[in-house]
């Protein structure tokens, strides 16, 4: 028996017992009360007759008075039991409806269905924990490659969005906390078909918890974890995560690779791109003086990458980054004065990397007004703002570029599994996970 059925029976105990009692009392009365037939003889119902009569009366079918017409005493009793049984049914139906709307009961139903779906998976599958923008992108890429996957996310909205992705497969998905090992087991972690776990939540602690659970529950399965900070990365590696991806660090690394050796960057893009993407002509970011706006998690990693390659960089940040040997301009970067102070007129490129999309767009537009030839890298935080970024890029290109430079944007996201080359795929499992785009101008 499934859990849901047991829970339902448990909740319906009271109405079922009430109905059993109403039936029993009705049967006893019917069988005991003497009837009178047309000839004036006394007759009694057998217990079976009484049960038969009760069954069709209580269920409102009403075949009439059989085997013979009732006398007044019998009709009085029948009147009473009709009301009693209707109340009993109504009570049962009300309980059923309450149960169907009960949140915990529906959760039990959904979890049961999810477990069945996972158990029915006979092909290798990947387990995705966290189905935000990155998770959805990975899911779509796996789907394109014909690989199955199972999803756990803590938010119900994200699970519902899975239906809108228009996938070729019906991926099992559950609302659940991936930190709880029980959820991971329900999602098939311990099954032999499970080929890998990708933990892509935006919470480093949750990703760490998943990595540990996988190591302990099914050590043979590789784990790919997303980490936003250096501490979390180190922690996850010490717990044996196979691949830890810090999307911000990866982006910084790629940006510097693109500056120093565009050919290598192009090769990486080619080998690790999402399935179905075409390699577009892209201008290399120029060498020279760079400005980084926003010294948060993203900005810090980009600056670290720049400094690792001995590139000249100035930071614009409203806070006090407190960095040794770096030029820091206080401000947001959206106004001309701050940008001027950071040397935008002689800069080769600018990275608009705050955690606010509007601010980033504003920085890019202002910077280009001051320096028409500047290479802009704009961080897009939310996928929903896609249209704004496309528009901004299109206007910029239309003004200053020829056709060959069209489509210079490159999205950096978790698309590693999408590669066709197995080796590159393995080693580059997380080349990209940052919602960022490069927007450049070759002039």
């Amino acid at each position, binding site marked *: 028996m499934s*859990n849901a059925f*047991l*829970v339902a*029976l*448990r*909740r*319906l*105990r009271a109405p*079922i*017992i009430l109905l*059993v*009692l109403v039936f*029993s009392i009705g*049967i*006893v009365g019917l069988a005991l009360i003497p009837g009178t037939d047309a000839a004036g003889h006394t007759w009694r119902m*057998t*217990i*079976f007759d009484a049960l038969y009569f009760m069954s069709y009366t209580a269920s409102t079918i009403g075949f009439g008075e059989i085997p013979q017409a009732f006398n007044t005493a019998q009709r009085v009793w029948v009147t009473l039991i009709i009301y009693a049984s209707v109340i009993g049914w109504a009570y049962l139906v009300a309980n059923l409806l309450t149960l169907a709307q009960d949140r915990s009961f529906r959760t039990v139903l959904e979890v049961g269905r999810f477990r069945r779906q996972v158990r029915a998976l006979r092909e290798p599958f990947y387990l995705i924990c966290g189905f935000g923008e990155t998770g959805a992108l990975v899911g779509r890429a796996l789907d394109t490659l014909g690989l199955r996957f199972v999803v756990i996310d803590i938010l119900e909205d994200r699970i519902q969005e899975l239906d809108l992705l228009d996938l070729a497969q019906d991926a099992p998905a559950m609302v659940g906390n991936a930190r709880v090992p029980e959820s991971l087991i329900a999602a098939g972690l311990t099954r032999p078909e499970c080929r890998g776990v990708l933990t892509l939540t935006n919470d480093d602690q949750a990703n760490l918890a998943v990595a540990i659970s996988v190591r302990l529950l099914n050590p043979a399965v590789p784990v790919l974890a997303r980490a936003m900070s250096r501490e979390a990365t180190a922690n996850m590696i010490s717990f044996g995560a196979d691949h830890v991806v810090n999307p911000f660090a990866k982006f910084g690394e790629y940006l510097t690779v693109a500056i120093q050796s565009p050919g290598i960057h192009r090769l990486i893009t080619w080998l690790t791109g999402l399935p179905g993407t075409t390699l577009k002509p892209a201008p290399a970011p120029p060498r020279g003086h760079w400005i980084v706006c926003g010294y948060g998690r993203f900005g810090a990693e980009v600056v670290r990458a720049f400094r690792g390659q001995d590139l000249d960089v100035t930071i614009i940040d409203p806070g006090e980054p407190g960095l040794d040997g770096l030029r820091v301009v206080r401000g947001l970067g959206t106004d001309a004065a701050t940008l001027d102070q950071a040397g935008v007129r002689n800069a080769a490129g600018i990275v608009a990397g705050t955690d606010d999309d509007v601010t980033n767009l504003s920085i890019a537009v202002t910077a280009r007004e001051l320096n028409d030839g500047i290479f802009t890298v704009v961080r897009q935080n939310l996928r929903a703002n896609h249209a704004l970024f496309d528009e901004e890029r299109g206007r910029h290109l239309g003004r200053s570029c020829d056709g060959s430079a069209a489509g210079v944007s490159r999205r950096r996201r978790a698309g590693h599994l999408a590669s066709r080359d197995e080796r590159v795929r393995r080693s580059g499992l997380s080349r990209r996970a940052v919602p960022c785009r490069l927007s450049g101008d070759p002039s």
Partner: protein
Amino acid sequence: MNLEKVIFAFFIIFAATLNFGFVIGEIDNPLHHHVWEFFAAFVVNVVATVLKFGDRTQVGATHLATSLVAVLQLTAAALLWTLAPAGPDGMIGAATMTGIVSLSAGALLANIVSVVILIVETTLQRR
């Protein structure tokens, strides 16, 4: 003391006692086995079964299984009683009565198991 537990134990023991009362007597003598006692045993067994619904523990599952067995046996006995032709004196035949009582005796065994589980469970909880 918990009223729910009292009701639970009450129905389990009541199902067993009624069943015992019906079964006791000469196996083929209809005078020793009253139909209303059978009816009462049947209804109380059904109620005891419903009370056992939804307990997910191993003991709860065994409890429910014993009750289902008892109800099944009693249902078979009831069908036999309903379908068997009555004798010329309106009384039920000795052969039929034997069948009914032996089916009910099977149900009694299931009810005894149920009572034993109840007692063992109660004893273990006190420790």
